[in-house]
């Protein structure tokens, strides 16, 4: 086992004066400076009684402080739960209880979070604190690096356990085909509390590259100008984000994106029309797509420049990983079935729960449906599980349903993912109301959700119905509701 923070230590030793991070305020920090800060944070954790092997939550926006806290926590041999800064207090409290967390660290206490115990505020005077001695960094072996929470079928998030070995494999795998080097510069608008963005930071600190932080995809002309000015070479994003850029600023994208070496998309399927548009606008840029889940990160990939006849697919298995469709004893070819994955990137399971039902003879059951063609290219066709995917952010319909049912004006309800042009899917609620339905009730219910759920989980639309279709066993017929929306 090699702690992924050791990759950073090796780079900081080799390239101490090289810029590692550029903050949202354009302040630049070298590898040596970030090492100093991370060591101070590791010492700060020790002074607060956080020991190697402890689990801690980091709830930060995309900032330099966050990455210092993250590195410092790994150097202290802690297991990190990265929680989106915009999460609801109930989500953070759930994660904290689910994983028996020692402490949660945040730069700022937002309203509603003050009652959650064991909080540690990120020290504003970090620079004046004593650094942890180099010899103590990562001195205790803790194989578990991260526990990332993802939506569960029961409506409760599940903690996906990811080891340092899992993450090291992902770094090696991406490096083997994406050729990321120390002179690469990546601009990231992805939340670094999710694995897509965070895994890229691991790769960059391993190879000595530079990461430019942005809080989110906003003010697109400024971002595109920054890509040109800073000679950015890599720009990862979601299909919805690229659609927004292409719909509104295709010319600017073509003009400022010329020197990009890579564009990397992940998280959700992308329409062929937009893939072609990117290939045509930036013919010299390598355009990659990953497919994977938090449980099995970067399991397949494709470079669309090399396979213009495979634009509907998400590519072939990444080095070391295996993907089949259907039954392990008799995998399907050119037929739809459940996508199964195995390989060194695969999680060992979920924190604190029996995970056996998610595995089949050592293969992880993704709950995704796909077709494997005769050449080994996978096409994602839908989902077996009832999860909704909003441009890469996943949620369980049951979570939204349980919130809707708390409202006294809801007699019954069901939630589905409806096709959406921009985000792939959108949350739509079907509600059997108590009393008169109407626009006012729709807004009241969506506001009810706004006060209890993260923004992406709020239903975009609520439709009133007389009855929710269910099977004899009482299971909601979501497919029939979804079909009703499509028709």
């Amino acid at each position, binding site marked *: 086992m090699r702690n992924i923070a050791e990759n950073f230590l090796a780079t900081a030793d080799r390239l101490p004066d090289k810029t590692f991070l550029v903050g949202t305020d354009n302040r630049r920090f070298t590898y040596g400076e970030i090492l100093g800060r991370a060591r101070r944070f590791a010492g700060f954790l020790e002074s607060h009684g956080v020991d190697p092997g402890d689990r801690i939550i980091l709830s930060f926006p995309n900032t330099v402080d966050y990455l210092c806290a993250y590195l410092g926590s790994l150097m202290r041999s802690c297991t990190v739960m990265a929680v989106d800064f*915009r999460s609801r207090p109930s989500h953070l409290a759930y994660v904290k209880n689910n994983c028996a967390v020692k402490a949660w660290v945040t730069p700022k206490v937002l309203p509603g979070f003050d009652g959650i115990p064991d909080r540690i505020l990120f020290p504003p005077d970090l620079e004046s604190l004593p650094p942890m001695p180099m010899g103590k960094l990562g001195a205790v072996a803790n194989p578990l690096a991260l526990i990332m929470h993802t939506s569960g079928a029961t409506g409760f998030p599940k903690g996906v356990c990811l080891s340092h070995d899992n993450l090291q494999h992902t770094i090696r795998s991406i490096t083997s085909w994406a050729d990321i080097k120390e002179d690469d510069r990546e601009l990231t608008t992805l939340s670094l509390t999710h694995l897509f963005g965070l895994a890229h930071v691991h790769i960059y600190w391993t190879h000595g590259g530079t990461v430019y932080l942005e809080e*989110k*995809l*906003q*003010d*697109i*002309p400024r971002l595109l100008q920054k890509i040109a000015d800073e000679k950015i070479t890599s720009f990862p994003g979601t299909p*919805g984000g690229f659609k*927004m850029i292409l719909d*509104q*600023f295709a010319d600017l994208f073509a003009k400022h994106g010329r020197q990009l070496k890579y564009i990397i998309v992940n998280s959700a399927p992308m329409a062929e029309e937009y893939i072609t548009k990117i290939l045509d606008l930036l013919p010299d840029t390598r355009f990659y797509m990953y497919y994977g889940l938090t449980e099995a990160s970067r399991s397949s990939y494709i470079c669309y420049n090399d396979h213009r006849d495979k634009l509907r697919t998400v590519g072939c298995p990444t080095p070391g990983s295996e993907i089949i469709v259907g039954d392990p004893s008799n995998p399907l070819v050119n037929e739809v079935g459940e996508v199964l994955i195995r390989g060194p990137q695969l999680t060992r399971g979920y924190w604190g729960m029996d995970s056996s039902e998610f595995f089949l003879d050592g293969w992880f059951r993704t709950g995704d449906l796909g077709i494997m063609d005769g050449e080994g290219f996978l096409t994602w066709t839908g989902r077996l599980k009832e999860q909704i995917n909003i441009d890469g952010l996943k949620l369980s319909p049951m979570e939204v349903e349980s919130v809707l049912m708390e409202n006294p004006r809801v007699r019954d309800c069901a939630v589905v993912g409806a096709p959406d042009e*921009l*985000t792939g899917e959108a949350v739509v609620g079907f509600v059997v109301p108590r009393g008169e339905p109407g626009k006012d009730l729709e*807004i009241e219910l*969506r*506001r009810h959700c*706004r006060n209890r759920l993260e*923004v992406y989980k*709020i239903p975009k639309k609520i439709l009133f119905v007389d009855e929710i279709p269910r099977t004899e066993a009482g299971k909601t017929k979501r497919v029939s509701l979804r079909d009703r929306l499509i028709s």
Partner: protein
Amino acid sequence: MSPNDRLLWRLLEDILLIEEDQFRDEYGPDEIETWDSLAMVNIASAVEKEFGHAMTPEEMVSLGSIGDIKSILRARGVRFE
């Protein structure tokens, strides 16, 4: 509230789920957590549908407040209080 103010308020209520006391010219993404880049696209599209005036992409990304939406529409002859 004038008819146009009411129309804009209804439109923003639907997209941003704001309460009436948040319908203030100086309010924007910092005050309204549902106002993200996706909401911005939805606002521009709803404004075009309800007021019949399309925003340019540059105008869309410059939207920093409810007052900015009104200013863009005022420049096209729409009257607000």
